[in-house]
């Protein structure tokens, strides 16, 4: 038996220690429990041991990505980014890797200001409750082989249902602050989220149609076996992925769609009356939403936890592929944020309803045709044409439709 044939299965299943470890711990503990309570306690423990790695992992990723984002934006703007804070009591600076820790401590010890006229209960509940949907969204995403917290048959539907409930809490924050800018900002946030939810969901229809299931595990399994099976390498897949990516930028309130919390336009919108750790919780929810959207985009279009080439499947565990793809998605989010200026409110709405919505509907039609034609170069020609021609027409039409006129002041004269 050669060394490779011994090593490969060990390497490929290295991520299974999370699953096996959980089962081992529960199996060991069962002997110490009274028989009557065994089911209740092991059930609860199983839930806790499933939640813990996700909570810890994504909270760590949040801390890391704030640092990555600041470094990346710094480099994009010809700066160094944070490079001073190292580890406490140690001489190394580690390229400023201690910055998230310092930020966390700063946020914790800052004064928590609640406006006198604010609805104090709602003002407190909004940021805390906003974390619930943010974390719940992670419960249906498959992170590796057999590593999905809940394998729901309608996982995708659950994801979007949970994602939609963040709008209520954003409005809750804006309303409870009793500040007109906060209210205005939260109204804008809701208008934006609802407008972009439509193209976001419709652009996933093509994947649902191709796989025939709403379960994310089934969708990921349909993409096993290398790049050729990934949905992104079909005409409807690439268009759907781009539309999904743009809409997820808007859903996650990321630049260039961050007008609800624009500092210069609307003095941070619904975040205006929040300080200290509540403010940090809003940011955490925002970043977690970004990770969830990235994870969903990976599961839908980029092959989930599967390797880009089939032979790598036996060498590198699925969790590593998932995290790697997620980091690439985060890098894309940072790159876009470093490039694009903020949109105006009317541009945002026009883009959602006049471009994103028709294009995502066309992608659904193209996905249906792809299945009917059966792929191949004929499919590329027909489906590609069906997407590219309206895209060109729309991009011409939207520019032409703008007509410039002199502003008339009706009351100022």
């Amino acid at each position, binding site marked *: 038996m050669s060394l490779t044939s011994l090593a490969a299965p060990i390497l490929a299943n290295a991520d299974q220690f999370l699953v096996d470890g959980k089962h081992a711990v529960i199996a060991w503990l069962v002997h110490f429990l009274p028989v009557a309570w065994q089911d209740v306690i092991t059930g609860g423990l199983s839930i806790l041991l499933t939640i813990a790695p996700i909570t810890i992992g994504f909270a760590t990723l949040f801390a890391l990505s704030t640092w990555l984002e600041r470094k990346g934006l710094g*480099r994009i703007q010809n700066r160094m980014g944070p*490079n001073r804070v190292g580890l406490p009591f140690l001489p190394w600076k580690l390229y400023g890797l201690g910055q998230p820790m310092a930020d966390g401590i700063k946020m914790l010890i800052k004064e928590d200001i609640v406006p006198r006229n604010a609805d104090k209960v709602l003002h407190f509940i909004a940021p805390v409750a906003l974390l619930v949907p943010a974390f719940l969204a992670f419960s249906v995403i498959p992170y590796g082989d057999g590593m999905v917290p809940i394998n729901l048959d309608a996982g995708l539907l659950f994801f979007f249902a949970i994602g939609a409930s963040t709008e209520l809490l954003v409005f809750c924050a804006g309303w409870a602050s009793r500040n007109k800018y906060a209210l205005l900002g939260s109204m804008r946030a809701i208008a934006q989220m609802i407008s972009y939810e439509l193209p976001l969901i419709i652009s996933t229809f093509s994947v649902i149609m191709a796989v025939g299931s709403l379960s994310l595990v089934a969708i990921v399994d349909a993409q096993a076996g290398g790049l050729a099976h990934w949905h992104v390498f079909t005409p409807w897949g690439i268009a759907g992925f781009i539309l999904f990516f743009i809409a997820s930028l808007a859903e996650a309130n990321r630049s260039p769609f961050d007008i609800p919390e624009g500092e210069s336009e609307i003095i941070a919108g619904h975040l205006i009356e929040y300080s200290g750790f509540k403010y940090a919780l809003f940011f955490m929810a925002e970043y977690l939403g970004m990770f969830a959207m990235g994870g969903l985009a990976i599961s839908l279009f980029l092959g989930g936890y599967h390797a880009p080439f089939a032979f790598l499947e036996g060498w590198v565990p699925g969790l590593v592929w998932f995290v790697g793809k997620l980091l690439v998605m985060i890098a894309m989010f940072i790159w876009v944020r*470093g490039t*694009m200026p903020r949109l105006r409110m009317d541009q945002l709405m026009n883009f959602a309803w006049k471009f994103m919505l028709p294009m995502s509907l066309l992608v659904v039609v193209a996905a249906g045709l792809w299945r009917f034609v059966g792929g191949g170069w004929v499919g590329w020609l027909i489906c590609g044409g069906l997407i590219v021609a309206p895209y060109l027409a729309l991009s011409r039409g*939207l520019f032409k439709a703008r007509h410039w006129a002199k502003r008339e002041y009706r009351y100022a004269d």
Partner: protein
Amino acid sequence: MLGTGLIKGMGETARNFFGSYVDKDRLPTQEYPEVPAQLKENTRQFPILVFDGEDPDKGLRCVSCQICEKECPPKCIYIVKSKDKKPDFLGKPQIYPATFDIDLSVCMSCGICAEVCPFEAIFMDTEFEIATADRFGGLLANREQLAKPNSHLQKIHPTMAKEIDDRRADASVKAAAKAKADAESKAKAAAAEAAKPKSEPPPPTPASTAPVAS
């Protein structure tokens, strides 16, 4: 076409991102406390008084003309003229500043004093680490603290210092030649005077006899 501008912008930021690791122009940050600040030649912080030679008392170029004091917009310069005179680099007796104070907490680093100085005595230093615990006495620089040798100026503003040094060397060479010529002509005149036979004194000039206008 919709999106071409976005792709161009993404390319530009990507060039900035990767370029910052290889290209010095794309990452101009100086990591200051570890790396000494690389200052430009035309940096200006606070004024100094330049002196020639080794001794600040003897070589101070300032002749206490008080132009800088009058031009200073925030009025942070305080000069007291001396009663006696000292020879300058040309050998001419000049007044010198008995007191020359600059309140650095008032100075706004405009550099007008250095611009107007006709004697090339006051210049802007590049030193910026002047923080002190005492904001009154600690930031009031007197003549001894302000006096810096010419070699310091040559170090911080080499181009300007060279031009000024050349000009001053020329002037002193010319002055020496003129003094020599003067001395020679005076000696010649004296010799001629001595050689000439005695004649009647010249008629008095009208100026000396005219009544003084009051």
